[in-house]
């Protein structure tokens, strides 16, 4: 029944977030900071992961294409659809859950155990809204752009690897990525990304905000944030795919 307790407390936590901000200018500044932190701060790891992910998908697809009747342009189609539908939104969200989720949980957790959260409450500030709301909004705004960049870099990485390895020609790959393209796939990927952004920020903030104790508990909260965010991402990935694509 422990999960019921957490579900209830998460619900109360979310309810407390919905308030009229004390001062919009302060929230705007916080939002700008988080946008920069989540967006610009994640580009390095996202770019690196995406390029190599695209490269591996391309080479593995070629390796598995044993039927000579299937044109090599299929490699481009497979790489494009795998990256757009699954790898960029889901894999990147898992990567971001590790990077941003743990950072949110440890930042808020540390503030909690060092009484900085109490200091906000004493001043009459809704601490959960002040600390968490800008992070949720920032993630839901910036993650789709990060994932779009990831899609582009993934497909680019596949093209570079395929051509450099000599397993697929540039013309075949480019023809493949243009063939029977379904624009809705991008919309679907972005819907998933926004959902995952919400999960990562709220679950991580929830774990950070309810940290009690010291440095050890901050570490545990950080780990829990990543674990539960990742599990929820995978569950919602399945649910959204089932709901939207079937």
């Amino acid at each position: 029944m422990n999960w019921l307790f957490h579900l209830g407390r998460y619900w109360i936590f979310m309810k407390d977030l919905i308030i009229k901000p004390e001062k919009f200018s302060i929230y705007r500044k916080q939002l700008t900071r988080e946008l920069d932190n989540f967006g610009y701060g994640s580009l390095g790891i996202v770019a690196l992961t995406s390029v190599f992910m695209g490269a591996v998908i391309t080479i593995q697809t070629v390796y598995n294409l044993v039927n000579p009747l299937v044109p090599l342009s299929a490699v481009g189609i497979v790489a494009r659809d795998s990256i757009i539908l699954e790898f960029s939104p889901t894999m990147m969200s898992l990567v971001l859950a590790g990077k941003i989720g743990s950072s949110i949980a440890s930042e808020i957790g540390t503030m909690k155990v060092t009484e900085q959260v109490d200091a906000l409450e004493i001043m009459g500030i809704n601490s959960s809204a002040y600390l968490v709301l800008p992070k949720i909004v920032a993630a839901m705004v910036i993650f789709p752009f990060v994932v779009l960049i990831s899609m582009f870099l993934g497909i680019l990485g596949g093209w570079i690897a395929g051509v450099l390895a000599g397993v697929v020609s540039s013309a075949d790959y480019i023809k493949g990525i243009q063939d029977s393209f379904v624009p809705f796939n991008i919309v679907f990927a972005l819907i998933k990304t926004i959902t995952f952004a919400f999960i990562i920020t709220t679950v991580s903030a929830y774990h950070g905000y309810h940290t009690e104790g010291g440095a050890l508990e901050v570490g545990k909260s950080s780990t829990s944030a990543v674990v539960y965010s990742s599990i929820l991402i995978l569950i919602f990935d399945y649910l959204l795919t089932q709901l939207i694509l079937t």
Partner: protein
Amino acid sequence: MIEIKDIAKSFNGRQILKGVSSTFETGHVNLVIGGSGSGKTVLMKCMVGLVEIDTGEIKYDDKIFSNLDRKERKPFRQEIGMVFQGGALFDSLNVEKNVMFPLNMFTSMSFEEKRDRVNFCLKHVNLVNVNHLTPSELSGGMKKRVAIARAIAPNPKYLFCDEPNSGLDPQTSIVIDNLIKDITEEFNITTIVNTHDMNSVLEIGDKILFVHKWEKWWEGTIEDILKTDNKELNDFIFASKLAKNIKKTGLI
């Protein structure tokens, strides 16, 4: 003035406060003393509304604070300043921004006015040219002083200090004590200090509330402390051999 009546609080069935009542006067430094785990921090957190009481009443001047909901408490909170045990300075902000924080949130002052107020408060706690430093660059005593500056920046009517001397050397402790005393008298604030620093008790305590075994054990002035025959209080205040000898010889 702050009045508490029969405050009780328990956590998971364990009673932490048992019907504590007292009155804390304006313009005075009111000390709450007691050993570790005696319930004095919980008492302070109850008084500021960080912990909800089970029964009892907390009155700020003529208003019953404990009956107000979160929204109704908000304007009240802007009249409360609190200095936490560890300072609780915001790590991501420098000294100036830390002290300016409550002003940014709740006033419509211009930046220049806010900066003047910040410098005024920092000067009051004997800190100059530290505006640009981050909390990690400050010593323990400086952190406490910045925390006091932040607490007094919005001109509070009530000031709460939770063990302001913990972890400080005796000389810095005296500086902090005197600072609290001066600020209380100068700005006519109702100040409540949680402490187990005996020097503070003897130096700045206008009124002393001794919490023992989660209830009010003794209450009085510094003169009363020196005359009392309350065993638990004497054991607590004059715990060391030196202190016992000083009391015996009547040097205090």
